[in-house]
């Protein structure tokens, strides 16, 4: 519909017509079509007709304006522009005002008789103000057209460490007890408590075996830990053997004892 067509340079800039309008009607039809399509609606056309005569809106010379408006509407029809109903509504309003203006004024009676044009004049004034607003918006700096907001890329984000959660040791212990309690309720079997340090040492030995396929038994002992440390390491080794997590190999009596990962092939065979 023509009312929503993009405004063309032939139309208005800051509310003023840029081109001289079809005073004589000998404009090539294509150009005329452009002009007609450039009106954003009947108010736009009406305003144009008034401004063309360099008149003030309040003077609204209803007779000639109505006539010209009808001519334009006829041209639009002729050019088979898809004529918006809105143009016809305005034509009806103009016709109504015209007829009321032509009626003889009732004598005396009302001082508060309202000029039939008044409402249309008010609308035209407001429309003109808004046209001005639209033109000013268009001229304001626009993002992407006149400037770009800046967002620098940064790799700082990659350096970000995961935030530390907030877990206390007590919570952990509690969670363990709860897990055990659940286990007992569900399975009715006693979960044995074992020396923690032994379990830790078991992990450490397994971890060591991740890096080397074989380690000497001596390597699991640390002299600095003293007797107790050695005992813990030894118990851990025995526990690992018992749980079939490692293998202990001694090639001949009194030679070095080696700990190694269980060979996968074994597992497959036993499987």
């Amino acid at each position, binding site marked *: 519909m023509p009312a929503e067509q993009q405004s063309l340079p032939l139309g208005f800039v800051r509310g003023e017509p840029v081109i001289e309008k079809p005073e004589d009607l000998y404009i090539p039809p294509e150009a005329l079509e452009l002009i007609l399509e450039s009106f954003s609606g009947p108010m736009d056309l009406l305003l144009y007709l008034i401004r063309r005569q360099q008149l003030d809106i309040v003077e609204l010379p209803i007779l000639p304006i109505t006539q010209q408006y009808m001519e334009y509407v006829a041209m639009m029809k002729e050019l088979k522009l898809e004529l918006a109903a*809105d143009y016809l509504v305005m034509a009806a309003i103009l016709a109504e005002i015209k007829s009321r203006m032509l009626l003889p004024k009732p004598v005396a009676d009302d001082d508060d008789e309202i000029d039939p044009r008044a409402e249309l004049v008010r609308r035209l004034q407001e429309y003109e103000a808004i046209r001005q607003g639209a033109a000013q918006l268009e001229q304001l700096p626009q993002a992407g057209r006149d400037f770009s907001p800046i967002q620098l890329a940064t790799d700082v984000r990659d350096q970000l460490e995961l935030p530390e959660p907030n877990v206390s040791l007590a919570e952990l212990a509690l969670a363990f007890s709860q897990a055990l309690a659940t286990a007992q309720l569900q399975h009715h079997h006693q979960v044995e408590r074992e020396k923690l340090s032994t379990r830790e040492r078991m992990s450490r030995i397994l971890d060591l075996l991740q890096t080397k396929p074989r380690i000497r038994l001596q390597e699991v002992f640390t002299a600095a830990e003293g007797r107790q440390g050695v005992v813990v390491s030894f118990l851990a080794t025995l526990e690992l053997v018992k749980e079939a997590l490692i293998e202990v190999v001694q090639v001949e009596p009194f030679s070095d004892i080696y700990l190694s990962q269980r060979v996968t092939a074994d597992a497959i065979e036993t499987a």
Partner: protein
Amino acid sequence: MQLRQLKQALEALLFVTEQPLSEQQLLAYFAPEQVSKKQLLAVLDELRQDYAERGVQLQQVASGYRFQTRTELGGIISRLWQEKPPRYSQALLETLALIAYRQPITRGDIEEIRGVSVSSQIMKTLQERGWVKVVGHREVPGRPQLYATTSEFLDYFSLQDLSELPAIPDAPAPLRNSAQAAQIPAETATDIE
């Protein structure tokens, strides 16, 4: 925190964030450093001055502070973009202007002044761009939606608030009682600013 360090951090921060940062956001950000509002504003002002003559500038818009390229460079910078920035139709601009200048406003009000029915496409575009939103209903039969502009609208046009919109004539006084009802929101809008 040293003032010099605060200035550098603030500057870097405003360069890397996608959205403008408000005073409140910045104060919250620098809370660990116990930066006062007075310090913050002083440093922001210094930065603004530092960049006054540069190719990028510190701009205060509705939703906060941001760096943006100097407006006068528009053409030379936009060469960078393959696509031309959108040109908005007269119909869209008039609708937007009505909402901006006369908010809160109903679709009926817009149609009355423009003399054309408002295309749904235009309202959709304006809402998708985040420039316009529904802020309520007018308590008349049908409870039509009332539209107003958003801070994204102001940000887009580099404005801090509606009072920075270029002035246009006030809406003319209504004639009849029925028209008067339609006029009230326009007056309210001026107050809202």
